[in-house]
């Protein structure tokens, strides 16, 4: 019962935050709205016993990415941009497209729900907590991706630096 309430609360937070993100005029406000939305998602993780992911979400996303965003927003001062028209010219066509897609998605999900023959949710495995199991699986089955991820981050770092740094020569 209570988790139902929580679900809807977090869901509302997420959706509203998301909507604000794409609608608000000032980029900083957008960022804050996004943070709210992400926080909502984090809450949903918690509801689904994904504690580790919850932590990651809070720390990495809200603590890392968003800060990065804010930095950039500060760097490229967007006051000018804030006064500009916010929406793209052919927003109407875009909206139409989106509504169409939305409708289709909705119907699919609706149709799909019945057909979504997932075996009913299993009871939570007792014993080992989320993090341990997760780490076990991560380093047994997902070793390769893990390593590659490091490469990815390396590339990201190098790339970010490359791009952002001023030209010396």
């Amino acid at each position, binding site marked *: 019962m209570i988790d139902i309430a929580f679900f809807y609360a977090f869901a509302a937070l997420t959706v509203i935050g998301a909507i604000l993100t794409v609608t608000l005029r000032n980029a900083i406000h957008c960022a804050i709205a996004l943070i709210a939305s992400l926080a909502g998602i984090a809450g949903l993780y918690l509801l689904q016993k994904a504690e580790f992911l919850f932590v990651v979400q809070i720390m990495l996303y809200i603590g890392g990415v968003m800060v990065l965003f804010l930095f950039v927003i500060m760097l490229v001062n967007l006051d000018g941009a804030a006064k500009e028209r916010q929406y793209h010219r052919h927003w109407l066509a875009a909206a139409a497209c989106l509504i169409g897609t939305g409708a289709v998605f909705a119907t699919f999900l609706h149709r*799909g729900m019945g057909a979504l023959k997932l075996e009913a949710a299993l009871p939570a495995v007792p014993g080992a907590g989320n993090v341990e199991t997760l780490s076990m699986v991560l380093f*047994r089955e997902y*070793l*390769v*991706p893990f390593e590659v991820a490091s490469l*990815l981050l390396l*590339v990201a770092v*190098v790339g970010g630096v490359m*791009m952002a740094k001023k030209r010396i*020569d």
Partner: protein
Amino acid sequence: MSVYYTATDHFVLLPALLLALFGCATLLFDFWVFPDPKQRRWLLLFLVLGEVFAGAAYWRQYDFLSTHGGELTAFNGALIVDHYSLFFHWIFLATTLIVGLMSYKYMEVSEEHHGEYYGLLMLAQTGMFFLASGYELVAIFIGLETMAVTFYVLVGFLRSDKRSNEAALKYLLLGGLSSGFLAYGFSLLYGLAGSTKLADIGRMAASRDAGDPILLMALGTTAVGLLFKISAAPFHMWAPDAYEGAPTAVTAFLAVGSKAASFALLLRLMVGPLGPARVSWEPILVAAAVLSIIIGNLAAVTQTNTKRLLAYSGINHAGYILLGIVAGNPTGIKGVLIYLLVYTFMTLGAFSVLTALTRKGLAGDDINDLNGLMKKAPGYGIAMLIFLVSLAGIPPTGGFFGKYYIFLSLIETGHYNLAIFAALFVAVSVYYYFRLIRAVFVDTEEQETPALSTSFGLKVGLGITGVMTLVLGMYPEPFLRLAQLSISR
């Protein structure tokens, strides 16, 4: 070794490791050793060495497979090495090597000669490795992203050049969107299969009826992501801009490496695990192929920027290759492989001629910059002729056999109308390829331009690509055998 990292795992992963290793090494050395851009060309050695070692590793794998046969899976099913993936590995290897060879002069000319470049090339190749060898969604996805992110950086490599920035930004944003969709599709696949292993997904797809809505959603979104990567219409819009804005060498890499890798994945997914759902995805691919051929050809006809023109021609070729997947019979798949192989060499070749055209204060990417090339540098002229003729699919060049297989497979599977359609558009494509040929051979340049910016590496690259294009056209036998081998299960 531990249970987490067995000898097999090592054996399979080794090439990727080597590449990553040399890639990082390049980055480090760049920071420490070579302050002067002129010396940085020595970093090319790292790339060459890296490729050599990786090549050796691949060779051992090839050797092993051809003696013991079958395939090797590692990291309990996360990676797979079979002749199929090896085929692509060879392509990636060649691509990276040639791109590296033709780059350094270009980078010097455009005053952005940084050691990171070679490192990034190799890291990108590492990403491709997982596209061809990955047998598990996460590995695949992460590999894809590694490749993609590297390309975002590479495309924007000319930081001071607006066009380059713009290209990078557009590519990144659209790429982000597409990978979002791809990931969404993957997540659904995972949800349906309860596992990220392609094997399980295959089982799932076989068990469910093709009409299952969620499966369709998964299919649709995945298809979107992949079609985007191979720049098939209508998800092609990024290609012309990215190609034009990017440094020419990178454009070559993008046009060949990224496309080949994505095809490797697309083919493996569609024919492998998602094979059972063919009825659902075949029409999508048909539509995409037809659109790509039409749009690619039509847009190229009046294009005046060579890189853009080649971008459109790339879209067009993607369409043809897709037709091979549509046919889906052994011939068709062989066709895809051969086509990609040929495409690699001819496209790289064409682009390397373009890199030579880029001179100080002269972008060299307008058709008129090709004028009188035959007079100026006959070698380059003839090479360009070979590549363009091959792109047009005219014997005795490699391009012909690509088309040959596609047509044959379409006929075998009874797609006569598609065959005729494809055949007709060959004529259209010839039209614009011959505009280039005409520029090279017939037209003469208005005012005197500086000499081509050639280099030893570039010449080597041209040599390899040219020879390969001709060999593939005149004696394709060994490569056909290789392709045959790589589709045999």
